[in-house]
Every structure is written in C-alpha cells, then in structure tokens.
C-alpha cells in the first residue's frame, strides 16, 4: 500500500531522479509560457483588474492539485506524511510576502515566470532574472544580521485542517467553492474594467466547475487515513525505535531538560486520575488517551523547542499515546523510561520505598501506594539535577535545527 511518492534516488539512481525533476520542470515552464506568463504586461494586468489570468491560473492550479493530492491520499495511493509541506515561519513568511509584492508590481514577474520570460527572449525578463539573482545574493550576505528573525515564529509542518481542527475534506471543499467564487468575481471585473465580452468565453467552464465541486465532494466522502491507518503505514520503522529503546528517555535526561531554560518540557501523565492525584511530577498534566485527538491542534502549535514526555505507571499507556502522537506526525514525543514506578525507585528515599511499596498488581499499575493525595508535593516530584547527577545517553532530538545558537547574531 501507499506506493507513492516513489523513493526516486534509490529506485532510479541520482541521474534518473534528476531527469524526472527536469521533466517536471519542463512541464512547469511549458505551461507557464503557454498561459502567457512570459509577458510582464499580462502579469501586471492582474493588479489593475484588467486581466485576471494570474489569479485564475494560480488559484486554479492550487485547487486542482489539492483535490488530486487529498484524493490520492484518501484512496491510500499517496503517503501524505512523505509529501513536503512548506513549514510555517509565520512572520518571515508574511514580511517576505509583503516585500515580494513590491517586487512583483515593479518588476512584473515572479522568479518562476521570469525564467520562461528570459528563455523566450524577453529582455525585461532577463533583467528581472539578473535582479533576482542579485537579490538572492544580497540575502545570503545579509541574513546573518537578522538570523533570529529569519528563524522566528516557526510552527513547522502546519496544515490548515490541523490548525483549525477541521476535517481535511471540509477544508478542500470550502477552498474549492471559494476559488469558484473568486473566478466568477474575476470574470466580472474583466468585463467591467477590462471590457471583455464574457459571451465569448468557452461554454465548458460550467461543467468543469461542476466537476471540481463533484471531486471535492468525493474527497470529503472518501476522507483521510485514520490514526490507525497512518500508524500501520509507519509501524515497521517506528516499532524499531520502540524496541531499540530510542525514544524511552532516561531520568537524567529528563532532569537536564527540565533544568534547561531553552527547552520547554510538557509532561503528560496517562495514569488514572486517582494515581495522578496521589503523586505526579511537578508540572505534569493529567491526560487520558482519549483526550489526545482534541488536544492535537494546540499541540501542533507548540513552539519548536518543546519536548513532550509521556508517563504512565510502567510504559504501556505511555507507549500507546506515543504511537498515536507519532502517527499524527507530532515531533519530539518521548516516553519517560520505566514510568512513575521506576521514577519512584530512583527518586523516592529509602524510607519511602520501604513503607509505600505494594505487591505487583499487574502491568502498568502502580507499585507504590500513597496515604494522601499530595500530588506534586513529594520531594520525588521535583528532584534536583544537581543532587542526583545521573548519567544518561541523550535521546531527545529537537525537531528543528539551525536556529540561532544563542548569544548575539553575527
């Protein structure tokens, strides 16, 4: 199942893979030229409401590709988790977009369209292209002076359905309808300002619009793979992480991350509420497995330096939660090794361990009993890294690297 996307380099070798990319680029350039995007006045016409080709082609292409992508994903042909989704760097993206708008209206191209303008001999396209190379060069030379901003507000792979907590099919459907409204409005503007005779427009526009709506409804009906299906797809690779104990973090590392100001730690305690009330780590949140789906949209918005730790009495419930969150693509999720039981073995003092131990009750059940619900008011709830100085093999990898390394930039 899920044969696509293809592992190009391993299947075809680097040369074959790059040939595929040249072919894709060829199609890209060919269509841009056929659409008239080598002509700057046609592109700029968009911004005077005379010729709305830009928005029609761009928005139309986005909708067609979106419908096909999520249809292929829903039918199990395409593994969406292997498809590159532009990471959301909120403010650099918005400021960059505002700057590019200025370049667009002055220069009359965007980088992609200037390629086909230059290759078909448009001299203004060649000048634009040279300018673009210069701007790119300038960016490489100046980015060091605002590295912190360049890496700021990073939300990683954030898709609209996850952000809104809405079904992907609903988003696909709404965007499709929105696009059709935009097309209708664009045509009216062309008639009004560009003095275009809409009667001469082809008749097939309506059936095509109907076809798009029908396809969007199919995407909605087919739905997207469930967490179970996503897990099944990655089970082999991820189970290896579990059996190799690559994601079960040792106590020493937990303490060192808790003490690290640059890392945000969230601990989810998956035991029963009474177990949680009797004893839990300082700052741990009580979470049930069934709460996780509702929490996902907010968890995805967590800053990039967030590490999630899962804890149960032993490891079973924490492992189930790990599988779910990993299947949903949440990075930096880890299990606290040995759960609350081993935590108390390690950090409870000798007297505590002698007086509070109870016989084995079953897997993932507490081996200690507490006379009162003291929550996080035990010394073991907040052991100091200084006092214990535990050795550990580091396992936590923060999802994004390359951020500012602290200190001044430059």
């Amino acid at each position, binding site marked *: 199942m899920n044969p*696509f*996307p293809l592992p*190009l380099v391993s299947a075809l070798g680097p040369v074959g*893979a790059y040939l595929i*990319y*040249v072919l*894709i*680029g060829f*199609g*890209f*350039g060919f*269509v*841009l*030229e*056929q659409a008239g995007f080598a002509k700057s*006045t046609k592109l700029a016409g968009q*911004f*005077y409401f005379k010729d709305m080709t830009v928005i029609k*082609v761009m*928005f139309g*292409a986005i909708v*067609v*590709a*979106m419908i*096909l*992508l999520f249809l292929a994903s829903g039918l199990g042909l395409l593994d969406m988790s292997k498809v*590159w989704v*532009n990471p*959301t*760097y909120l403010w*650099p993206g918005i400021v*960059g*977009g505002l700057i590019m*708008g*200025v*370049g667009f209206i002055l220069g*009359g*191209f965007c980088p*992609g369209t200037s390629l*086909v303008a*230059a*290759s078909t*001999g*448009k001299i*203004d396209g060649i000048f634009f*292209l040279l*300018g*673009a190379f*210069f701007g*790119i060069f*300038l*960016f*490489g*030379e100046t980015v060091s002076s605002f*590295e912190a901003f360049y890496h700021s507000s990073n939300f990683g792979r*954030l898709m609209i359905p996850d952000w809104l907590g809405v079904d*992907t099919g609903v988003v*696909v459907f709404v965007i499709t309808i929105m696009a059709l409204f935009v*097309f209708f409005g664009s045509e009216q503007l062309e008639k009004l300002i560009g003095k275009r005779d809409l009667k001469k427009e082809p008749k097939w526009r309506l059936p*095509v619009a109907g076809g798009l709506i029908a396809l969007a409804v199919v995407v909605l009906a087919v739905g997207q793979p469930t967490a179970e299906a996503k897990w099944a797809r990655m089970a082999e690779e991820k189970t290896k992480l579990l059996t190799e104990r690559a994601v079960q973090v040792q106590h020493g590392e937990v303490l060192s991350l808790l003490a690290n100001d640059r890392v945000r730690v969230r601990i989810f305690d998956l035991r029963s509420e009474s177990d949680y009330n009797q004893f839990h780590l300082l700052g741990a949140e009580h979470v049930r497995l069934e709460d996780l789906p509702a929490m996902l949209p907010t968890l995805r918005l967590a800053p990039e330096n967030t590490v999630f730790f899962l804890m149960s009495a032993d490891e079973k419930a924490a492992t189930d939660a790990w599988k779910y969150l990993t299947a949903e693509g949440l990075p930096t999720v880890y299990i606290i090794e040995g759960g609350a039981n081993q935590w108390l073995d390690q950090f409870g003092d000798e007297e505590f361990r002698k007086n509070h131990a109870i016989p084995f009750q079953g897997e993932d059940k507490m081996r200690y009993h507490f006379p009162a619900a003291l929550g996080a008011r035990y010394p073991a709830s907040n052991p100091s890294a200084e006092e214990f100085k535990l050795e550990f093999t580091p396992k936590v990898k923060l999802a994004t690297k390359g951020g500012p390394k602290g200190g001044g930039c430059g």
Partner: protein
Amino acid sequence: MTTVSLKQAKSQAAAKSTVARVAKPYIHPYVAAVALGVVLFLAFFITGNGLGASGGMNRITVFIEDLINPAHIDRVPYLLEMAGGDKNPLDSWVVFVVVGAVMGGFVSGLISGRLKFETVRGPRITNQQRWMVAFLGGAIMGYGARLARGCTSGQALSGGATLSVGSWLFMLAIFASAYALAYFVRKLWN
C-alpha cells in the same frame, strides 16, 4: 520549376508545424490552470516535492559564490548549509526543476512562435526604464523570496496545494502588497 516550388511549400509547411512563424494565442487560463495543477500534483505524487524556482536560483547563486570565494561560504552559516565542505549546492532537486522550466519555456515559445528578443513594457515608459525597474523589482523579489523561504512557485503554489498555513498567509501578503502599491506605480504599466 514546379517540383522545386512544391518542395519549398512542403518544407515551409514542415517548418510551420514545428516552429510557428506567427505567434499562436495563449491557451485559456482555465486550461492552463488544470494543466499546471496536474503538473504540480504529479510533482508531489511522484517525488514528494512540489515545484520551485527561487530555491534553485539560490543554489546557482551560492554555487557561483563558492567558485569565486569558497572561504567566504565557510563564514556564513546560511551559505554553509548548502555549500559547506564537499557539498555541491547544485545537488538538489529544485535546481533541476529550474533547468527543466527554462527548457520547457523555451520549447513552448519555439512551437508557438513566441521566441523573440523584445522588451515588454507599458506604453508610457522607455525600454531602458523598463529594464531598470525590472532589475530593481527582480532584486526585491529575490530578496523577499529568500526571506519567505520560497517564491510564488515554491511557497504559494506548492504550499497552497498542500494546505500549509504559512503559505496561504504568504500568498495573501504578496497580493495585498502588490495591490496596495499598484495605483502608485500605474505609470509603469498603463
């Protein structure tokens, strides 16, 4: 005589079928939209990557910088990521998409009779003014595209289709700023 002119007519017809003399009209925007959408989908479906332009141009820039002044690359972390050590900045899918796009544009122009050295501009400016503004616009566009981590192709098209939140906001930002400025630079285009 008659055979020769027949031959000429034949060769002219053959030339016409591959290299058009008179510029053909552009295809309908919605046809282009579907075609571009299918190309974009196939890119994602087959390779897992979308389309891009400025990313490839960026790597070409870094490649040239690396030829001229490799020591400089080693001092800038942003450049080092692409060209540090024995890394070749051209060894990336997006460079090949750019190469393909140039070829595709050229062939499309060739078969549609639109290969022609000319300057396309608004009626109220000179060619030289158009070139200067095009260079300036290109520079601003190139700078912004790197800040935004992608241009209209790599961010708006690719990120739009995969429903990236940032890409949709980016798209709004481009159009907002271009529309806001359009009135003030109307002399360039009208």
